[in-house]
């Protein structure tokens, strides 16, 4: 029952978060530009444009528009994209698998590199390899992601010709309508450059984080006791010390999901990756307001869900942590 109470609280929070986002989204939409300009050719008269604006309800006062939006939103309708001419939520959901797989690819890369590297740097504090990794991570943290992306395209796509420079390649449709690029060789080869680019934001940060936490854990009393007790080096390092570094890693990781989503916008744009981030940037360029608002609401929802999962994972790693709101 405790978990249920926790979930209900989270659901209420999610609704509030999304309401706030929708108000903000709605109040800035006039500053995004005039959607009509993107819908009509250059020689269409102002009169015609105004008639269209009226027809689309864009001349109504803010509150009327917002209440109409909320009324539809309650029924699951977040508006229709001007460009795609389909419900905005459907358009976003079509692009979601691409972004999700990109994020999975990036997470896989940075976890499988940062954990061994972080541990290595903590254990062998003065080796030359540690110095290289630590210096490299400082450089890595300060290179902007679009530069990484374009450099990767030029080196591996054009000069060496090893990997495709853009797009998602061949995809396979899974029974529940999910288009995956994981199951074809072509799809996987298309995934490599964008995921490396996206992971390059997290990688240096995580190496440094894991190293610092690991160093701290290694100097705690229980690790010394474990050593004194005569446990093997391996067990002390990877079970006793490492397990305790995971907690901050999960916390930071959960928070960084937001950053990761923000950077999918850049990565997807450079690689022409047909995901949500690319979709969003295009929507901004085209002043596709319904799609913009739907996107930020969906992303807000993803945040809430991810944070909820992070809280759950906490309890698995550290039994001392209790779910907030679940008393007793």
């Amino acid at each position, binding site marked *: 029952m405790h978990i249920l109470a926790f979930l209900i609280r989270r659901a209420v929070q999610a609704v509030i978060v999304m309401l706030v986002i929708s108000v903000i989204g709605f109040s800035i939409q006039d500053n*995004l530009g005039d959607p009509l300009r993107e819908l009509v050719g*250059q*020689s269409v008269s102002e009169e015609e444009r105004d008639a269209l604006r009226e027809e689309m309800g864009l001349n109504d006062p803010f509150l009327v528009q917002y209440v109409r939006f909320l009324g539809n939103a309650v029924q699951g309708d977040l508006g229709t994209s001007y460009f795609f001419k389909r419900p905005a939520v459907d358009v976003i959901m079509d692009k979601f698998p691409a972004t999700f797989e990109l994020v999975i690819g990036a997470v896989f890369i940075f976890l499988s590199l940062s954990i061994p590297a972080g541990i290595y740097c903590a254990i062998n504090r003065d080796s030359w390899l540690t110095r290289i990794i630590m210096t490299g991570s400082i450089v890595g943290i300060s290179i902007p992601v679009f530069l990484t992306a374009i450099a990767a*395209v030029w080196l591996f*796509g054009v000069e060496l010709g090893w990997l495709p420079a853009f797009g998602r390649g061949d995809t396979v449709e899974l029974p529940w309508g999910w288009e995956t690029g994981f199951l074809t060789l072509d799809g996987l080869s298309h995934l490599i450059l964008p995921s490396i680019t996206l992971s390059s934001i997290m990688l240096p940060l995580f190496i440094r984080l894991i190293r610092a936490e690991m160093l701290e854990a290694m100097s705690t009393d229980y690790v010394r006791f474990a050593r004194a007790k005569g446990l093997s080096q391996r067990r002390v390092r990877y079970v006793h010390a490492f397990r305790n570094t995971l907690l901050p890693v999960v916390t930071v990781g959960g928070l960084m999901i937001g950053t990761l989503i923000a950077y999918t916008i850049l990565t997807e744009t450079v690689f022409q990756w*047909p995901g949500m981030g690319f979709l969003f940037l295009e929507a901004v360029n085209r002043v596709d307001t319904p799609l913009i608002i739907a996107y930020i609401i969906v992303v807000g929802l993803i945040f809430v869900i991810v944070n909820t999962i992070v809280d759950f994972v906490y309890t698995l790693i550290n039994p001392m942590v209790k779910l907030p709101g679940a008393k007793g």
Partner: protein
Amino acid sequence: MRLLRNLAAAGAVMLATAGVGAAQTLKFAYDADPVSLDPHEQLSGGTLQLSHMVFDPLVRWNQDLGFDARIAKSWERVNETTMRFNLREGVQFHSGNEMTAEDVVWTIERLKSSPDFKGIFNGWVSAEAIDAHTVEVKTDGPSPLMLHTATYVFPMDKKFYEEGGAEIAKHGDSFASQNVSGTGPFTIAEREQGVRVVFERNETYWDEDSPGDVQTAILTPIKEAPTRVAALLAGDVDFIAPVPPTDLDRVRENENTKLVTMTGTRVITLQMNQERHEALANTKVRRAMAYAINNEGIVEKIMKGFGTVAAQQSPEGYVGHNPNLEPRYDLEKAKQLMAEAGYPDGFEATMMCPNNRYVNDFKICEASAAMLAKIGIEIDLTTMPKAQYWPKFDERAADIMMIGWHSDTEDSANFNEFLTMTPNPETGRGQYNSGNYSNERVDELTLASLTETDQDKRAEMLQEVERILYEEAAFIPFHWQDLAYGARKGVMIEDVVNVMNFPYLGDLVIKQ
């Protein structure tokens, strides 16, 4: 074992020779994909590019700005206001329906109801089917632009659209925006908006003389210019457009690719608002500004040669192009004019420019501001994305504003109608004249040119307009933006591109 090897070798040779002259696949990348499959929904370059693949016009432009017969095999003037088009026989739509005069008439009527296209077809009073393969079009007066307008008539399959739904939807969904039946060289096999469009050769295409050998054409929109260029250089696509100025050399010098450039017809200008700013109403001041701006330098340094320096609106090849007008950079003369006008110390003015609409738009404005500072005009420059820029432009929110214009009719009068005629909300003339420039003679000559069918007289009128605009410095011209295409060697793109920027991919030949 040896026999086997020989067989394999023979097989390989056969496969290799089979490739020559046979069906080809073209992978190409533009900066955007078409908004809709409905050719009448939005008047834009993307729509016209699509129209030329899936449909065929009555007549089409050729590389010399002349007209080629397409669905109309011939045409004749019956009298001053009537033109008769004789249609090709035995042309089939993708649906299998036979194309007749009824379809053409229906298409013209649909064009007249489209918000985007009705402006072009204003003068077409009626279209009538005389028999199954003859259409007669009547105009409200003598029309010199009959054929110019006919390039916009891409016959649509009346029966197909009437059964499915013929509504033109500017927003929201419609049958015509998702389904298509034309007479063009390609059908659409697959389409995921914003990701890719797959075109397949139309097996029953009427034009058997077309040299085109592309069986499958795959369009991938690649928004980012460096990625688009990288895709071409990496061999992932065979043809790209546009190539950004910074990458021209890279595409030209790569051993596997080639660059095709041509002078475009979109002119880039600054308009000076005479109502907002007293000094700008002074002809001497405007002339001084025109003398102060080194547009040759801008083309060379900022555009990297990717533009043709302009002194007027009409590019070469247009009837109104006045060969006597030349760029006029002269700083001393500019200073002298400022002094004569009574502004020896200059003045302050605001300027607004888009930063993602034209090639290097904001850099051109920055350079102009620096050049104007030399004659004492202090510019407060604001740049913004086009989405925010157009509402500002409609408000006339700055003293000096940038506008680029491509004439939809490929005719000089169109520039005047929208950019330099006296603004009039009722007639819609001067809709993009943010300078409020007004000259009776310009208005008079432009209107007269719209009903003058004598080409020589017409040219004289429109060239006079250009001269007046030049002398009064109605606007500051920069250049006509060039067009640049990049292609793999062997893809004979140079034969099918044109200044209108709609490559006729149906006629494209790919050599191995």
